[in-house]
């Protein structure tokens, strides 16, 4: 396994990354977990989620070692209960105001509550997910500050509303720059260098061309976004770095998404696990990692963090996880 890690002529190495999971295996896992979730009237869900993440991480290989997911059903169950409580309280308050014939205040409480919960959920989610993810026993970590994220979020939402959506591109990049810039991999540090302006014009171009081409350009737009997410990511360790580069083309995305769509239709949705597996295989096969970090020198530096409330809350509010 050390052969691949040998420096080449320019002193740069290639680091292989791939998804080794199989659709059929993931299908088995999804079915067994779905069955257990149905039998337990949904109570098994946190365990089911833990199991599925464990499989997806365990079949992703970086530099010849698999990722490890250490989150447990019990942790997620506790988070699940807390998340339900928080959302129930929010709903309860809303209905109380409506009951007291103050519906405007009730709805205001609802929206402000959700507004405040989302950044907290994102924060908690990253903290938990990163701490429970490891590679060769070395944990990831999220060192973001809750208030800081909150400020970015509030400012972003308000400016996006005021500018009728235009600021959305800058908001999205600010979030990404902040969150990814606070992620540690042992004592190595991620950075993301996204530019709101570039991202904005890329999306304007994608939007206009998609309309002109009656939707066909959507695949190339998707490629542009994906590549922008990957290409601006960097990992640094001491004075050494690795860089990420996407080799995906619009044609690749066209093939991936069309086939995914056909699988979904012809299996009546049962084929969803295959879609997940082949999408992950696609994504990781299109990421090229080069640099000069020696991962053998990676040192454990991140704390354990077992509160899954934020993660479950994100799940409930259906906030996508963006790494």
């Amino acid at each position, binding site marked *: 396994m050390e052969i691949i890690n040998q420096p080449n002529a320019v002193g740069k190495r290639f680091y292989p990354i791939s998804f080794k999971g199989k659709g059929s295996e993931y299908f088995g896992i999804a079915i067994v977990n779905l069955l257990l979730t149905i039998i337990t009237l949904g109570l098994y869900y946190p365990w089911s989620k833990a199991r599925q993440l*464990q499989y997806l991480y365990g079949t992703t290989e970086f530099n010849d070692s698999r990722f490890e997911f250490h989150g447990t059903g019990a942790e997620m169950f506790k988070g699940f209960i807390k998340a339900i409580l928080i959302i129930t309280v929010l709903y309860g308050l809303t209905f109380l105001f409506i009951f007291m014939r103050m519906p405007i205040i009730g709805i205001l409480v609802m929206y402000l509550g959700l507004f405040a919960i989302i950044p907290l959920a994102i924060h908690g989610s990253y903290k938990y997910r990163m701490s429970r993810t490891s590679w*060769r*026993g070395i*944990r990831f970590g999220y060192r973001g500050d809750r208030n800081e994220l909150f400020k970015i979020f509030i400012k972003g939402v308000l400016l996006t509303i005021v500018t009728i959506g235009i600021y959305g591109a800058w908001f999205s990049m600010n979030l990404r720059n902040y969150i990814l810039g606070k992620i540690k991999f042992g004592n190595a540090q991620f950075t993301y260098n996204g530019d709101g302006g570039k991202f904005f014009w890329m999306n304007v171009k994608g939007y206009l061309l998609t309309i002109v081409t009656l939707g066909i350009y959507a695949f190339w737009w998707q490629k542009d976004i994906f590549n922008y997410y990957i290409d601006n990511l960097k990992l640094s360790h001491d004075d050494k770095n690795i860089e990420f580069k996407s080799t995906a083309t619009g044609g690749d995305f066209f093939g991936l998404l069309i086939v995914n769509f056909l699988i979904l239709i012809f299996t009546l949705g049962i084929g969803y696990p295959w879609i997940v597996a082949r999408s992950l295989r696609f994504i990781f096969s299109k990421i090229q990692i080069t640099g000069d970090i020696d991962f053998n020198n*990676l040192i454990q530096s991140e704390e354990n963090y077992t509160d899954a409330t934020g993660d479950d809350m994100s799940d409930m509010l259906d906030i996508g996880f963006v790494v």
Partner: protein
Amino acid sequence: MDAVFYNGVSARPIDAQVSLLDEKQQLLIEVDGETPILIAFSDIAITHSENGLIVLSFGKNPNRVIEVRDESFRSHYLKINHSGKKGITYFKLLNAGWKVHVLLALLIIGFCFGTYFYFIPYIAESAVSILPRSFDKKVGDMAFEQSITEEEIDSVATLTMNEYLKKMMPDEYKNYHLNVVKSDELNAFALPNGEIVIYSKMLRHIKTDDELSGLLSHEISHVTNRHSMRLLCKSLSGYLLLSVMMNDVNGLMTIILDNAHNLQQLSFSRTYEEEADISGLKLLEKYKINPKGMIDLFEILQKEHSVNIPGFLSTHPVTSDRITYIKKHIKNHPFSFTPHPELMQLLTKAKTQMSN
């Protein structure tokens, strides 16, 4: 057995030897120049397991990881591990093979279909009892407005028929209203708001007041038992489920109202028909009306069946089976009855009043 060990402090791989102590339920990890680690199976988590590779981890801080790329080690470990937790049963279920998984998938699909086509409609039907009666009226009004136009109504015969209703059942008549509608269709139906529609052709086929009373008692029983509402909810249960999930009660009411015009085309099930027949018979008993009229009417309708496909029979299926159980019910619950010349008189009057 060769393994790679990560000590939870650094990512540097360390060559190690692992052995399984079957009886003691322990794993022994040996690294050159270090004290061997002995760890109980019950303290080990299976982080990943696939053909030819097993990744185990133990300890909170440091969290140590052992990676063994050997299928015989993996299957042996899964077989002898009796710790009962850390997912042994789960992994066995996973390794049950694709046939079992496909079977489970089919089972789940079957379960979903069963829920969607039987359980949800059943719940929706039962849910009618929580809808207020005023809603039945709203739906009925809407349906009446959409299906009957002013000029179709034979207003003179209608007036006589309502007098008939008043004489026939003085306690209940206030909640109902009869309409004689000029039509070549052999049909009659009742709407949830108490509007009863009899087509002129049907009225012409009816010979005695007992037959007419039998028909009316049956139609009224559909209303009192809220059959249309139940059927409507049942057939719209898919939409109902959606609107409940989206917490949209107004949407639910709108969907029902949008479908109100279908009311007269809904075909009742045997259960509903039987229920309406039996409650109808009770009404006849109350007013001492000869129940034989109901049987006579159904026999007439059955004879007409071959010529009149659309109409009463399509919405109220009459089978010989049905006539048999009505006869049986009458035999088991006999009651006294008297002739009602005043009703017969009104029926004759209405029939002569009908323009053509």
